[in-house]
C-alpha cells in the first residue's frame, strides 16, 4: 500500500501544474496582463490558456456519460483558465504558493488549483502507510526469526545422535553446522518467495473484489507489484533473517 501511494505521489509530482480559473467575463487586456505576470515568473515552464469552449469539449471527451447534462444546460458553465506547468517539479511548495498568491491578487482570478497539495497529501499518507508497514514488517521479521530459530533448534535436537556420530568420526564444526545454516537460509528465502507470490495473487484479485465502484480512487488503492529491486531485497532479507535465526539457534543449542 505504501509502495503504491508513494508511486502515485511521484507520478503526480512529475506532472506538476497550477490551474488559474478566471472570472466569466474578463476583458482580453486584463487576461493578457495576468499571462504576462505569470510568464515573467522564474518558476514557470510553459503556459497554456484554455477557453471555456475548449474546457467544455475536454469535459465532454473525458466524461462522455455526462455529455447530456452539458447539452441540457443552456450556457457553458466552464470558465476560461490558464494552465501553468512549473519548470522544476522539485520546487519548494512555499515558493510556488507565494507565486500563486501573487497571481491571485488579480481580481480576475477566481480560483486556483495546485495539484502538488494532492501529491503532498498522498505522500504523507504514503509515509504513514510506510510507518505502519515498517512496524508490522518488524513484527513479522521478529516472528520469522523466532520461528526459524525454533525450527532449527528442534532439528538440532532431532539429529542429536547424528551430530554426535559425526563428531566421533572426525567432522569439523563447520561441516556439522553448515546444513543447519543452509536450512535456515532456505526457510527464509522460501518464506519471502511465498510472500511475494501472495502479494502477486492479492494484486490480481483485489481489483476484481473492489469492482469499479471506487472510480478514480481505485488508482490509489489498487496495488502495484513490487519492483525487481524491492522483490530481491525481500528475498535477500528473508535469507538473512533465516541465517541469523540459524546462527542464534546453533550458538545456543549446538555447543560443539
Amino acid at each position, binding site marked *: 500500500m505504501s509502495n503504491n501511494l508513494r508511486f502515485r505521489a511521484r507520478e503526480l509530482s512529475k506532472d506538476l501544474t497550477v490551474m488559474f480559473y478566471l472570472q466569466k467575463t474578463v476583458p482580453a487586456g486584463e487576461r493578457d496582463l495576468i499571462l504576462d505576470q505569470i510568464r515573467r515568473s522564474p518558476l514557470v515552464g510553459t503556459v497554456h490558456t484554455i477557453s471555456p469552449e475548449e474546457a467544455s469539449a475536454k469535459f465532454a471527451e473525458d466524461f462522455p456519460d455526462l455529455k447530456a447534462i452539458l447539452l441540457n444546460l443552456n450556457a457553458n458553465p466552464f470558465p476560461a483558465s490558464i494552465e501553468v506547468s512549473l519548470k522544476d517539479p522539485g520546487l519548494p511548495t512555499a515558493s510556488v504558493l507565494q507565486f500563486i498568491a501573487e497571481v491571485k491578487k488579480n481580481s480576475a482570478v477566481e480560483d486556483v488549483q495546485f495539484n502538488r497539495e494532492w501529491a503532498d497529501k498522498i505522500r504523507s499518507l504514503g509515509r504513514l502507510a510506510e510507518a505502519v508497514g515498517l512496524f508490522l514488517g518488524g513484527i513479522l521479521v521478529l516472528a520469522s526469526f523466532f520461528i526459524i530459530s525454533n525450527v532449527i533448534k528442534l532439528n538440532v535436537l532431532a539429529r542429536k545422535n547424528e551430530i554426535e556420530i559425526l563428531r*566421533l568420526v*572426525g567432522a569439523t564444526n563447520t561441516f556439522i553446522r553448515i546444513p543447519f545454516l543452509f536450512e535456515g537460509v532456505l526457510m527464509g528465502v522460501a518464506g519471502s518467495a511465498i510472500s511475494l507470490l501472495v502479494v502477486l495473487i492479492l494484486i490480481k484479485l483485489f481489483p476484481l473484489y473492489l469492482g469499479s465502484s471506487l472510480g478514480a480512487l481505485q488508482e490509489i488503492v489498487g496495488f502495484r507489484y513490487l519492483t525487481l529491486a524491492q522483490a530481491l531485497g525481500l528475498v535477500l532479507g528473508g535469507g538473512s533473517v533465516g541465517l541469523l535465526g540459524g546462527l542464534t539457534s546453533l550458538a545456543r543449542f549446538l555447543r560443539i
Partner: protein
Amino acid sequence: MIELYHVWKQYQKPHWALSDVTLSVRKGEFCFVTGPSGSGKTTLLKTIFREVLPTEGQIIIGGKNILRIPDSKIYTVRRPMGIVFQDFRLLFHKRVFDNVSIALRVLGTPPRDMKRKTFIALRMVNLHPKIWDYPSQLSYGEQQRVAIARAIVNNPRILLADEPTGNLDPDLAHEIFSLFREINKQGTTVIICTHDKELIRRFGGRVLHLQEGKLHGKDIG
C-alpha cells in the same frame, strides 16, 4: 604411539573409573584390554579418543598431548582413528551405506571413492549384500558388523574396538578378529576391549588387564 600418564577418571565420588593408569602402546601394536564389567575398559578407550576427559593425567598420541587440543580441533584427534562402539551408535533412519560412508563423508571423499571404499569395507565384514538395507532390518550381529565397517572404512592408523564381537557367533567373531589382525599387519595400531579369553589366546598379543580402574599388564603369545 599412544601414551597415557597417570590418568585418573572419576564420574561420581567416591568411585574411580580409572585409577592412575600409565601405559604405552607402540605404533602397529595389537593389544587387548580385558577386565570384568565396570572395570574401566570403555572409559579407557573413551579417554583415548577424547570422548571423555580424564580428571587427571596426560594422554599423548603421536607426540601430541590430545588434552591440550581445543574442542574446535578435536577432529584432528579422531580422524586417524576408527572406533567400534559397544552400543554401535548407528543411525537407524539411514541405510547401511550411509552409516558406513559417514566416516568418509566428513573427510570430503569424492562420491565415487566413497562408494568403492564403503563397498570394500562392507565386503570385509561380509555384509556387502545388505548395503542398501536399514540397520533395523539387520540382526544384532549384523549391526555390529556395520559398526566395524564404519571404523575400518577410512584405513585408520589406530583402531579402537569396544567389545566388537560381543554379539557374534564364534565363527564370525573369529572372522572379525582375523580381520583386525589383517588390518594390524598393515601397520594399524589395534586396541580391543573384550571378555573373550579364548579369542585372546588364539590371536595372541599384549593383554592389558583392568581391575577396578587399575591396570595390570601382561604379554601373551
